[in-house]
């Protein structure tokens, strides 16, 4: 194994040295002589978090299936290791070869959440790669961004050469092929390559689009600077998920990581159309994998890894049209082999006795339900089509099955919300407590414990609420205190997070290119790992806004006009603005929209084609 790690003297002095050593079983080592494209896949957070990401695993497999491409993994070193690296001038390296990231051909970042932006920039700094796209020399690697945040990449557009919008299984190998061909026939230069990349469907090269602004600060227009590139970038999808590449081997970490189990992706998209949810919109159209394919894959991955848990991954597992068939087939061998089956993302209205009995992880784990809002009025407005009766039925099943504790997720600051909706959260929690005492087969030796966990609403691009403002910070905090006062029952625990974190997220989620200097200032002043409570510094973020003369509430707390050009209008995710506007109007009228399974609501995603489950042409 030809790989170099930091000097032993340093590894002994940092926490969890196993994060940096590499050499994991199933990690892919290739012969450099045979490789034409060195691809560094960077996850802007720690090893333990990065290893759990399914997208990286899928793309690692896809890219390495191409003989001339070698895709390696890179994770953010923890702060103690970063200090050592800076002290001894050790550059950021990739896990498989130990080679410095700056020597790679393509360096990609998967952008899973806005708070990872400073960490991504820090990794570029550690690698010794100039932060701004325009500052990179002819030999610098191509810096590529992808993942959910690429749907509005404008705040970080200045730092990336190209973005991959949508699903990368086919797009990334195409990009590598373009790179390889241009290098082979001598036509490669950064400018020429990026121009060609911009012509491939799903790739957005920000430097080829100019933005202009009105006097009031809103966007005037986006103009492509060449006439042979698209005006809007349409996302890529894998048309037939059953034929899509999927890893049969997972890189097995030595140290303990999050979600260390077999991840089986069951389907993409969501039929429900909850109005706050970006994932449910941008992963449309809904495409399912067949149970036969899934079972075969599950067995194969189990044989190759020895994991003892299989997790069925999707946005809403019970909405998979063949869920019963799939679970029956999997349970036929998992019980014998002592493998647990885990079904995360279960909707309240699909929680049954049968599930409790059959699925061991449901029996033994904690139970979480997400009503999201405290009153039916608000649940209707956000299109979370779940009633109080559904919730009480579900907790009844849980309590009769022996559970004595349950977690409830809510959001506050939702559009159309009034204080009585906040009070409604406390009422609902209380009703759940009382339901416990009505459950005849409850565990009488234990008391009941209900945990209410409330996060702050963040308006997200490509949702019906993308125009809505986040509540001003003082109001968010006032609502948190108000709910605290409403909850008097000692059996109800109330958890909430720092609203300031949500505020920064909201700024970045709906931001535009004028945020680049702010993010740069934040990263250069040392902000990193913003998603970690101990490393989040609101005051220093506010410093960065001041230093760049940018008002953050322009992005977080302003209602955007329906006629306004939005920073993410440059991207086409399939779902139309007309649909989103219709849904927003219905929200304000407290009207619900049924699921795709009941009938097609014409969101527009079917234009992307593909082997879809529910779309009607």
């Amino acid at each position: 194994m030809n790989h170099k790690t930091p000097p032993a003297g340093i590894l002994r002095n940092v926490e969890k040295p196993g994060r940096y050593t590499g050499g994991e079983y199933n990690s892919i080592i290739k012969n450099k002589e045979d490789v034409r494209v060195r691809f560094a896949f960077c996850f802007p957070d720690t090893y333990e978090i990065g290893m759990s990401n399914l997208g990286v695993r899928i793309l690692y497999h896809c890219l390495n299936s191409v003989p001339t491409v070698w895709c390696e993994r890179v994770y953010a070193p923890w702060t103690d290791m970063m200090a050592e690296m800076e002290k001894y001038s050790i550059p950021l390296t990739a896990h498989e070869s130990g080679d410095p990231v700056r020597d790679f051909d393509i360096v990609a970042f998967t952008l899973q959440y806005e708070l990872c932006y400073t960490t991504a920039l820090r990794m570029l700094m550690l690698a010794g790669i100039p932060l701004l796209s325009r500052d990179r020399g002819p030999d610098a690697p191509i810096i590529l961004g992808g993942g959910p945040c690429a749907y509005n990449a404008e705040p970080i557009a200045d730092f990336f050469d190209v973005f991959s919008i949508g699903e990368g299984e086919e797009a990334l190998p195409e990009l590598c092929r373009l790179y390889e061909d241009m290098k082979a026939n001598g036509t490669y230069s950064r400018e020429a390559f990026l121009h060609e990349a911009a012509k491939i469907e799903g790739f957005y090269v920000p430097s080829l689009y100019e933005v202009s602004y009105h006097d009031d600060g809103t966007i005037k227009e986006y103009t492509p600077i060449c006439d042979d590139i698209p005006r809007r970038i349409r996302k890529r999808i894998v048309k037939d998920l059953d034929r899509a590449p999927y890893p049969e081997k997972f890189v097995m970490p030595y140290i303990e990581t999050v979600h260390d189990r077999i991840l089986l992706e069951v389907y993409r998209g969501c039929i429900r159309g909850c109005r706050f949810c970006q994932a449910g919109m941008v992963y449309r159209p809904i495409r399912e994998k067949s149970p036969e394919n899934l079972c075969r894959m599950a067995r194969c991955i189990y044989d190759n890894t020895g994991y003892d848990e299989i997790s069925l991954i999707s946005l809403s597992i019970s909405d998979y049209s063949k869920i019963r068939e799939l679970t029956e087939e999997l349970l036929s061998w998992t019980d014998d082999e002592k493998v647990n089956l885990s079904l995360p993302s279960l909707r309240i209205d699909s929680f049954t006795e049968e599930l409790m009995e059959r699925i061991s992880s449901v029996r033994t784990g904690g139970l979480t339900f997400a009503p999201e809002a405290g009153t039916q009025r608000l649940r209707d407005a956000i299109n979370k089509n779940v009633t109080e009766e559904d919730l009480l039925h579900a907790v009844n099943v849980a309590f009769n099955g022996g559970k004595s504790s349950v977690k409830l997720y809510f959001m506050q600051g939702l559009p159309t919300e009034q204080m009585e909706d906040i009070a409604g959260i406390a009422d609902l929690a209380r009703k759940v407590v009382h339901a416990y005492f009505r459950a005849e087969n409850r565990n009488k030796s234990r008391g009941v414990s209900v945990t209410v966990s409330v996060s702050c609403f963040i308006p997200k691009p490509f949702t019906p609420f993308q125009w809505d403002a986040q509540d001003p910070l003082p109001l968010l905090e006032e609502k948190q205190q108000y709910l605290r006062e409403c909850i008097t029952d000692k059996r109800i625990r109330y958890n909430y997070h720092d609203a300031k974190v949500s505020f920064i997220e909201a700024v970045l989620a709906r931001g535009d290119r004028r945020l680049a200097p702010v993010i740069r200032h934040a990263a250069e002043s040392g902000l990193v790992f913003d998603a970690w409570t101990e490393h989040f510094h609101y005051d220093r973020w506010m410093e960065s806004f001041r230093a760049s003369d940018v008002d953050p509430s322009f992005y977080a707390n302003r209602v955007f006009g329906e006629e306004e050009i939005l920073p993410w209008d440059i991207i086409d995710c399939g779902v139309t603005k007309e649909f989103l506007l219709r849904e927003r109007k219905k929200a304000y009228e407290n009207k619900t929209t049924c699921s795709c399974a009941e009938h097609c609501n014409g969101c527009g995603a079917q234009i992307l084609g593909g082997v879809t489950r529910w779309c009607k042409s």
Partner: protein
Amino acid sequence: MVQELISGPAFPRPATLRVRFRKTGNLQYISHLDLVRTMTRILLRAKIPVAYSEGFNPIPRLSFAAPLSVGVESEVEVMDVRITHPVDLSLVVDRLNKHLPLEMTVYDAYYAETKPNAIAYVSYLIKIKEAALPKEERRKAMEETLLGKPLTVVKNTKAGRRETDISPMVRSVETAIEGEEYFFRITLFTENASFLNPDYLVRALHEKNNALSGERDREHYTVLRTGFFLADGTPFR
């Protein structure tokens, strides 16, 4: 595939398969708990007929004779696995090695006849490379430190930091200079199945002889466990 490995009908009670392996290089940084988890998966991938515990949450029955601390390599690790069926011993080693990363190699597998508590002492090889070249006087001074009575180190225990005299655990010390490194060949007694972390000896050298006090990227030390022995001096098997 499972059929080849299993060489007979089920045992009336599970037997103990003893697997000897090396854990070196970067693998010294994975903790004992991580090792247990890794080995469990390897046994499953290799389809060894592992016995499970009873009860609600069955776990594979594995145990390790002497946990290895993070930062210590070993050529002689001992893992005992309870198995339900006899296995073809000549195939087990190869089968396990197929599923193992390069820095971990299984070199022997046999039915255990002794218990781990028969281990009386453990041998280690500590190599220290300092920024300055090794000198004879320094070697002598460090040897004297390790043979000193008392040999006090600060141990971090649940009760807090405690000064302990570890000299009763030190059975023998031999030092040498080889190339640019100091070599320390040490044997340590085990006491009630407790194994002293040899890193304490390195710490003692650091405190009393100022070893490894310079630039961390130019200094280097390795600690390698080299053998387990019974009270009569014969190797543990």
